[in-house]
C-alpha cells in the first residue's frame, strides 16, 4: 500500500465521456489498481476530497460556482493535476454557450415564464472556462474523449515518475 500512489478523478462540466474512456482501459485497470489507489472519484463512494492526492484527473470545464470552488480546492490538495479531455482543455461543447452567456441558455431550458431554480443548485459562471485559466495545470491530455490507450500512457508515465508528453500523440476532438 505504501508504494502505491493515490489517484482521484473529478467530473466538472463535461459529458462523463472521459470517465467512460478511463473505464475502457478494461483489463489494464486491474494492472493499474496494484499501483494506484483510487481515493476520490464519481466512480467511488468517498464524498470528501482527501488532504493530499498524488494525481488528479479533471474531466470537464469550469462552468459553475461549484466547479470553480471544487477545482481550486483540488489544486490545493493535488500533486499532479491532469486536464483530461477537450472540455477541461478548451471548454469544448460546454463553452459553446459563451457566445451567448448563461441567460439565453437558461431561458431555453426554462421557457414560458418558468423560473430557473436559484437555490440548491450552483449558479452558472458568466463564462465557461478551461481548467488552466483558473488553476495551474501540470499535464494536458487532449481528446474528446482521449482514448483509453492515451489515458493508460499518461498514468503509466506518471507512475514511472515522468511527465507524459502527448505532443504529436493525442489530438483535439
Amino acid at each position, binding site marked *: 500500500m505504501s508504494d502505491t500512489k493515490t489517484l482521484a478523478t473529478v467530473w466538472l462540466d463535461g459529458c462523463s465521456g472521459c470517465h467512460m474512456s478511463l473505464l475502457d482501459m478494461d483489463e489494464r485497470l486491474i494492472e493499474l489498481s496494484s499501483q494506484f489507489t483510487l481515493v476520490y472519484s464519481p466512480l467511488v463512494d468517498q464524498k470528501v476530497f482527501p488532504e493530499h492526492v498524488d494525481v488528479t484527473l479533471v474531466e470537464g470545464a469550469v462552468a459553475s460556482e461549484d466547479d470553480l470552488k471544487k477545482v481550486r480546492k483540488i489544486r490545493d490538495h493535488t500533486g499532479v493535476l491532469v486536464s483530461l479531455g477537450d472540455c477541461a482543455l478548451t471548454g469544448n461543447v460546454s463553452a459553446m454557450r459563451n457566445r451567448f452567456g448563461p441567460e439565453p441558455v437558461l431561458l431555453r431550458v426554462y421557457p414560458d415564464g418558468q423560473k430557473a431554480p436559484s437555490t440548491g443548485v450552483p449558479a452558472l459562471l458568466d463564462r465557461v472556462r478551461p481548467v488552466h485559466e483558473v488553476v495551474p495545470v501540470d499535464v494536458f491530455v487532449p481528446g474528446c474523449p482521449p482514448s483509453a490507450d492515451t489515458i493508460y500512457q499518461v498514468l503509466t508515465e506518471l507512475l514511472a515518475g515522468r511527465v507524459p508528453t502527448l505532443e504529436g500523440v493525442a*489530438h483535439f476532438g
Partner: protein
Amino acid sequence: MSAEANIRTLTIDEVDISARADETILEAAREHNIDIPTLCHLEGLSEVGACRLCLVEVKGARRLLPACVTRVEEGMEVTTHSAKIDRYRQMVLELFFAERNHVCSVCVANGHCELQSLALRLGMTHVELPYQYPQLPVDASHPRFTVDHNRCVLCTRCVRVCGEVEGANTWGVMGRGAQSLVITDLKEPWGESETCTSCGKCVQVCPTGALFEKNRAGTKTAKHPEFLPYLRIMREGEQR
C-alpha cells in the same frame, strides 16, 4: 540558358540540396521530404503568405521568411525548425484556435481537418490565450453546401480556387481585421448567388470544416484537393 544555370544549390536543415531557380523554399523542401507546416498554401493555387506557419530562418536575412513565396537562392542556408520557430508557430496556431469557435469534437471535419492535424503535428496540446467566442453566422442557403464562419481560418483558398481555377469569382473577403469574413458575391446568401456554379471546388480545398457538403458526416467529409495540380497541368497542356 543551359539546364545547369537554372539549378541552385542550398542547404535546408544542414542537408545539401539542389533545386530549380524558380522553386520556392517550400517546394524544394517538400521534394526532399523536409517538413514545413502550412495552412494557406495549396498546390495548384497562387500563394498569399498569410498563415505564417511556413516561416523559416534564412541565414543573413533580417526577418523570418515565408517558405511558400521565398525563392531558393544559391548558397542559401535555411533552417526550418528551431526552438524559436517552433515557439512562434505554436503561438500562431494558438491565435488561430482562439480567434473563432473551433470546437473539434462537434465539427463535421473532425478527423479530416488541417488545423486539427497541425495542432497534433506541432504539439499544441492546449491554448493559453483566452478564446474570443465571436458570434458568427452559418449560411446553409445553398442546396448542397454550407459555410460555417465559426470554423473559417481566412486562408482564402476558397477565394483563390473560385477565381483562379473555376473563374467564377463568387468568393471574396469583406471587412477587416478580426471582422473579416469570406463572402459569396456581395454578401448575398450562397444559395442565391448568381455567379456560383456549384462546382464544389471551394469545399474540396477548404482546410477546415468551414465549407462542407451537406448530408455528409464522419469519414465521408474528407476533402480531396488533390484534383488541383492535375487540373492545372491539363489546362496548361491545352494552352500550349
